């Protein structure tokens, strides 16, 4: 998921975006018959999900799967409502920021990871994805897909400025120097867009600088660590010191990805799911390509992915587990990869995704798994990630110094984490 999903997730009433809905209708399965409901939120993945569900039905005569789409903005509101009153879908999509809340409140069914009844074998998926969906030692989610972050660049703007295309050798210093060279005030183009985006920007640079967002025991904020601040300073400096990025006001009025699509910025850090968006535009397809993120103290990218989870109060837990096993298995993963909207999480099936868009060097996104770091979460992730955006925006805009902003952020985040400890969010 992306800031877009995160931000609008609970919120937009008027807009709506989404997942599967509550199933009042799932009847109990006796003698292998039954009807499963499967909640999803992305309209662009509906074809792949339906197709995979049909395959599952073929293996289980008498069983039918109803794939239910709820648009993104409404998905979480509805899911919470349905969970509270016992009518959520049997199986549904989960993301990192929401996982802690559902797992901690006992809304999800544990999934076996070994033995004859194993729903998933942890070795089949990138380790950070498996651990993202483990809560207090119990596995609750089977990875469905993942996304990594890479540096997308506009070849035309690079060639015009006479700058070599970025490659795996780039360090932060190269990023800064070349972003400056690519900035052309007369044409109104910038080297790089530096918006306040977590997954694509500051989580990555914090890891590259050797900093941390949240402690291992999920009790403390890492925003006062000098290394964490170093990771943030890269972007603040890119705007104010090197003047190689549009200001936060400009990036508020025009989305960074959109600036990139229009050739207003030469580089943008974007997650793998946007590859399909860029590929869908023939003009852009010819102009842009992708390289690994620049190295700081170390090389790092955030990895995040969705998982299939089973609702704790499902009427047919066994059938639901079987479905999850199938959906995170090899066959369903290959189907998913062929549609090109998301990288399947299952090892050995990921190349299908890259093959669907041969003009881009998408191996970069797949290889990133080798140096990925997990997405930071806690029980009530949404609460403090909201504070992150709020305070970091003040540093990005220059209204406050980075030190002051991160000090306030640490305080706010520590307070929220302390509340979690008392079980406040349940």
């Amino acid at each position, binding site marked *: *998921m*992306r800031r*877009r*999903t995160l931000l609008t997730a609970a919120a937009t*009433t*008027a*807009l*709506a*975006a*989404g997942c*599967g*809905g*509550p*199933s*009042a*209708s799932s009847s109990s399965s006796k003698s292998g018959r039954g009807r499963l*409901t499967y909640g999803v*939120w*992305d*309209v*662009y993945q509906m074809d792949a999900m339906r197709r995979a569900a049909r395959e599952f039905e073929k293996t289980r005569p008498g069983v039918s799967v*109803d794939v*239910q*789409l*709820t*648009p*993104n*903005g*409404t998905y979480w*509101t*509805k899911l919470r*409502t*349905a969970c*509270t*009153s016992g*009518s959520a*879908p049997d199986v549904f999509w989960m993301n990192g920021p929401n996982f802690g809340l559902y797992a901690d409140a006992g809304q999800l069914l544990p999934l076996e990871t070994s033995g004859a009844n194993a729903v998933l074998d942890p070795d089949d998926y990138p380790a950070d994805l498996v651990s993202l969906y483990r809560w207090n030692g119990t596995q609750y989610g089977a990875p469905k897909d993942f996304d990594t972050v890479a540096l997308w660049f506009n070849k035309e703007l690079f060639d015009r400025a006479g700058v070599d295309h970025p490659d795996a050798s780039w360090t932060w210093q190269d990023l800064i120097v070349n972003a400056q060279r690519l900035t052309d005030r007369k044409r109104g183009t910038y080297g790089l867009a530096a918006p306040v985006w977590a997954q694509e920007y500051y989580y990555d640079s914090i890891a590259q600088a050797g900093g941390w967002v949240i402690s291992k025991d999920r009790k403390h904020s890492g925003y006062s660590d000098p290394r964490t601040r170093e990771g943030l300073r890269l972007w603040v400096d890119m705007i104010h010191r090197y003047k190689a990025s549009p200001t936060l006001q400009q990036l508020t009025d*025009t989305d960074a990805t*959109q*600036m990139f*699509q*229009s050739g*207003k910025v030469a580089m943008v850090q974007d*997650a793998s*799911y*946007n590859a*399909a*968006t860029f590929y*869908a*535009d*023939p*003009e*852009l397809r010819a102009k842009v390509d992708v390289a690994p993120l620049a190295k700081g103290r170390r090389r790092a990218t955030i990895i995040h992915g969705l998982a299939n989870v089973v609702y704790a109060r499902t009427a047919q837990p066994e059938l639901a587990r079987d479905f999850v096993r199938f959906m995170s298995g090899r066959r369903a993963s290959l189907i998913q990869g062929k549609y090109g909207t998301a990288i399947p999480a299952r090892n050995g099936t990921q190349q299908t995704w890259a093959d669907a868009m041969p003009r881009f060097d998408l191996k970069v996104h797949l290889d990133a798994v080798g140096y990925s770091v997990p997405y930071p979460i806690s029980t009530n992730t949404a609460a403090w990630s909201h504070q992150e955006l709020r305070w970091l925006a003040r540093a990005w805009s220059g209204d406050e110094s980075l030190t002051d902003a991160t000090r306030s952020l640490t305080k706010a985040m520590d307070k929220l984490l302390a509340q979690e400890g008392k079980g406040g969010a349940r």
Partner: protein
Amino acid sequence: MAETTRRGSREGRRWPAHLLLTVGAVVTVFPLLWEVLTSLKSFGESTRVPPTILPRHWDWSNYATVFSSIPFAHEFVNTLLMTLLRTAAQLLLCSMAAYAFARIRFPGRGPIFLAFLAVLMVPGELFLLPQYQIMQDLGWLNSLQALVVPGMFSAFGTFLLRQFFMGLPVELEEAARLDGANPFTVYWRVALPLARPGLLALGILTFLWSWNDLMWPLVVNTDPAQMPLSAGLASLQGSHLTDYPVLMAGSLLATLPVIVVFVAMQRHFIQGIAFSGMKG
């Protein structure tokens, strides 16, 4: 003063009004014109900065995409049914209650009216969860009743019509009452016909709100067969990508029936009713 002279001078004074109205209308309509133009652009073009004003290629395929992505006709029927039932129920229930508040004296009238108004004073999002639970208890999830029933009651409509009834001259109703009619008959035979402009306004607004209602159908429904158009259109938004030209095309298509209804109804907004026979 001669009639002709007066009319002539009035005509002469009309042009400033027209100028004012036209300028206002242009400003008002411009954003919508933009919506129309965006719906005719390709996805790539719609993401360009600065935006093009006229589409480079007039791309009508976005409208076709709307029809192929959602069961438009089916959802259209659902929306129509939901909207008509809600509107009819509101007009009846609200006007009854409004008449009582305006013209009947009974103990507790003030506090009860205040309770009605209180409903307007909290954000609508508050009602989602409790209403969902009621629907579930009734076993109404995924049903037409669930879409219609909570929308049949309106504090807004009651307040609006109360104002209309209170604004009406009482003389006609007094006459009917003296003839021995009971309060319901006076309401139905005398007051309701006089409040027609208010009913028309409430009807138009209820129709509109119901037509665009999005959150409730999405929450109470999982069955695509029961989805209204607004909810179907909302599902066109992806999690990482929104195809704005298609979204705009869908929004315009969905809006069209409301505009048609408005154009048809607004003709009735012509000069007030003459209260003939009430003199004296």
